[in-house]
């Protein structure tokens, strides 16, 4: 059974249809990237899953629990980090976490140990006595993540967790999410910054104008999107000879030469590529690199989406 199950989820705001009957399955232990341009419906979906919004129609379950009918049970197993959030003035970080721990009904005796664990996990232990309102944006993001983790939820719904962060803070958040994945959490993370999701998510869903365009395993989607392989060839000497070999060779399409560097699209298999490489070497071409350029999330996104809002 999927940890998160969404069926024909629709949300209308008056005449505007923010979600147009989307279906999605997120398995336990997945880091699921929920990608789309601004206004695509990512936050709406996440807020429905977090029980903060009622769908117009359709259903959603988390761990088999219906989000519409059992919100209280959902809150026990879900940690939600909104894209923008406030902090309470005059509260220190430990007090802030203590407040949310009490709000999640964690007994006082266990609270201190849990708060210490969460502070260590989010690397905030040495800031425990600082006022949260004095934190930088990155620190506030971590603080909110610490609050989200305080009741040890099975599922994390993270809405743009790294937006507005500097590169170091982004990398740290990424590492933290990987740690959480290793702890067995299921994470649904929304973002429109593709580079931040590419090397972190094992599955992705792309949404645009309220419609789910594609969803599933990242590598499978990538392969389905790219019908050809992109090969990069860098030679030290013999570039003319290399150009001659590549020209009019069956299976090689669109060779793009820039000095000693070649980029080509190919529909050759592994064995044929090996043959090509050995032919180049046998003809005296000094090969520095002969490698396949791996597809990125940007490729998938640009291929799948149409643009516009």
């Amino acid at each position: 059974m999927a940890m998160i199950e969404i069926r024909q989820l629709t949300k209308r705001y008056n005449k505007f249809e923010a979600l147009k009957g989307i279906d999605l399955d997120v398995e336990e232990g997945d880091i699921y990237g929920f990608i789309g341009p601004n206004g695509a419906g990512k936050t709406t979906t996440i807020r429905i899953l977090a029980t903060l919004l009622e769908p117009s129609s359709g259903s959603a379950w988390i761990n088999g629990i219906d989000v519409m009918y059992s919100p209280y049970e959902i809150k026990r197993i879900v940690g939600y980090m909104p894209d923008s959030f406030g902090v309470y003035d005059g509260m220190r970080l430990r007090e802030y976490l203590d407040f949310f721990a009490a709000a999640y009904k964690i007994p006082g005796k266990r609270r201190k140990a849990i708060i210490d664990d969460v502070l260590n996990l989010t690397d905030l232990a040495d800031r425990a006595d600082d006022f949260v309102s004095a934190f930088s944006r990155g620190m506030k993001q971590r603080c909110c993540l610490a609050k989200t983790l305080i009741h040890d939820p099975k599922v994390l719904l993270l809405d743009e967790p790294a937006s507005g962060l500097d590169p170091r803070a982004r990398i740290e958040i990424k590492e933290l999410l990987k740690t959480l994945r290793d702890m067995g959490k299921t994470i649904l993370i929304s973002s429109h910054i593709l580079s931040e999701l590419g090397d972190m998510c094992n599955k992705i869903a792309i949404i645009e104008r309220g419609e789910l365009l594609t969803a599933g395993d990242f590598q499978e989607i990538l392969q389905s999107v790219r019908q050809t392989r992109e090969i990069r060839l860098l030679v030290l000497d013999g570039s003319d000879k290399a150009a001659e070999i590549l020209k009019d060779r069956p299976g090689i399409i669109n060779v793009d030469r820039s000095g000693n560097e070649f980029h080509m699209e190919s529909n050759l298999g592994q064995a044929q590529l090996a043959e090509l490489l050995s032919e180049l070497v046998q003809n005296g071409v000094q090969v520095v690199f002969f490698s396949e350029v791996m597809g990125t999330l940007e490729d998938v996104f640009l291929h799948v989406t149409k643009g516009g809002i």
Partner: protein
Amino acid sequence: MIGPFPSTALVRREFLSTLRKPRMLVYTSLAVLACIGGVVLMWPSAQAVQIVGAKTSTVLLNVVTVVLMAGCGLFLPALAATAITSERDDETYDMLHLSLIMPAGMAFGKMLNALGVYWLLALSLMPVLGVTFFLVGLSWQHVLVRAAVIAWMAVAIGAVGIYCSARFQRTVVAIAASYFGALFVFGIPWVFGAAVLEFFRIRVFWLVEAACDVFMLRLEQLAVAVVPPTIIILDSRMPAAVNPLGPLIYLTLLALFFFRLTLRALRRPPKVRVPKLDKPIDDAARLHARRKRFPYYLIDPLKRKKIIEDGRNPVLVRELRWGVLGRMTVMVRVFYGALAVDWAVAVAFMLAFGGVGTNRIVDATAVAMTALTICTLLPAPILLSSLFVKEREHNKIEMLQMTLLRPTQILMGKLGAAAVQLSPLVVAAVLTSVIVVAPFGLARAEWENLLMLGAGLVTLFVCVWTVAALSLAVSLLARTTAGALVETYALALILFAGTSAALHLALQSAVIRRSIPPDLRHILSLTASSFSPLFSYVGLLERSRQNSWTFWIASCVMFILLGAVLMLGCTHRVNRGPERAKRRANVTA
């Protein structure tokens, strides 16, 4: 294009967009309908036109003036005070400061936005008021003077509000300062002026009646110059003595003074909030040493707070420890301020209406208790209306909703905070009533007075409960603190005065007076009073009326229930229950 006058961009963004909102239509329609209702109800019968027509037209003019001035005093301070602080809250102030809009343009644009809606509302009432010319007795100069004083009063109050908005960083502080400023500049002198005039009239000048009139006239002219609302008193009694130049000069000087202060505040670079970096102190000896100094014997912010105990409502604990009690020094100041105002008001009313030598001690008690209740209710929305809306403005309400707290827990936490926040005001009012008001009755051994005092205290608590519930409900629905404040004041005005006053007005209209027998009119009058606990409380004074105590009790019960219903509505709102329940019902079907 920004154009030659740089604030055009601001005016276009704020004022014109405000006018386009559907709620503007609602506000204008309500104001015009109320005005039409007033005119229709007060219109004399055909036979009476010649006799009372002129008087009615003056009364109508006074009613509209009072309504517009009250609206000006209640709504403008909040609207003006949030003009610049809202930019700070939205983090757009720096961008505005960096633009080519000059401070004068910014202040003008913000001022026009705050005043424009009010002026338009006032203008929309003019055609209706113009109908009263048919009754004869009003000159166009009369109406013009009133309109000028009202418009200038709005400018002056707006200038005070805009200055507070530019001067203070936090919205709630700016709003509170704006109301206090407006009260200081207009309200308190008026109350004192009225009380002093009454005192002089009753106590002193009956001795030298001939000298009295001249002296009183000069005093009243001075009062009009300093406190424009008194123009109504003087204008009604001695129209020839009214010189509009005085109030207009006073208001212009006031507006210019505050406008100048606003420019100075806006020219300064935006302030950066310095983060608090103090660590908590765990050393007991150091804490003990600090406790000897003010304000640490009240509360020491560096003392490490205990964890929230099991079984306690975290929202209430947070509101108390980090909210209300965390600002203990502010609470103490509010208490002293409220006590000073309450004592001054109570002493003024008791001396004016119920001093030794007269037989109106019960009247004085009723008036003083009503004034104390109003003094307690007026600042209440400022303290309460940000309770939920602030959470919403900073996207914190969702984080609360996502926890395992039940909606009732969230609401009870906020209600508890509301009770504690209101406690300085209520305690000050109760202390004043016991220490200042009660002794007058005890000195005269009038036990009825104690009964009236007790009823006054009950009325006070009923009103406070209703206003607290109303403030919380509006705070939950409103999007901004300023909106919440204005809407709370408007609804409170309708609840505590508007409905009852309108019904009384209707009962006094010629058509109804003719068609209803006196007995039924008496019952209907009591019923009309019971739509406001304050009206029904004052109605207890009329001993000729039977059943007035029954109607007062009914009024109190009705308002307690109203508060309860509002709280219930709040619970549903926090839970978003109705929508969920409806959906469940649909699915089951």
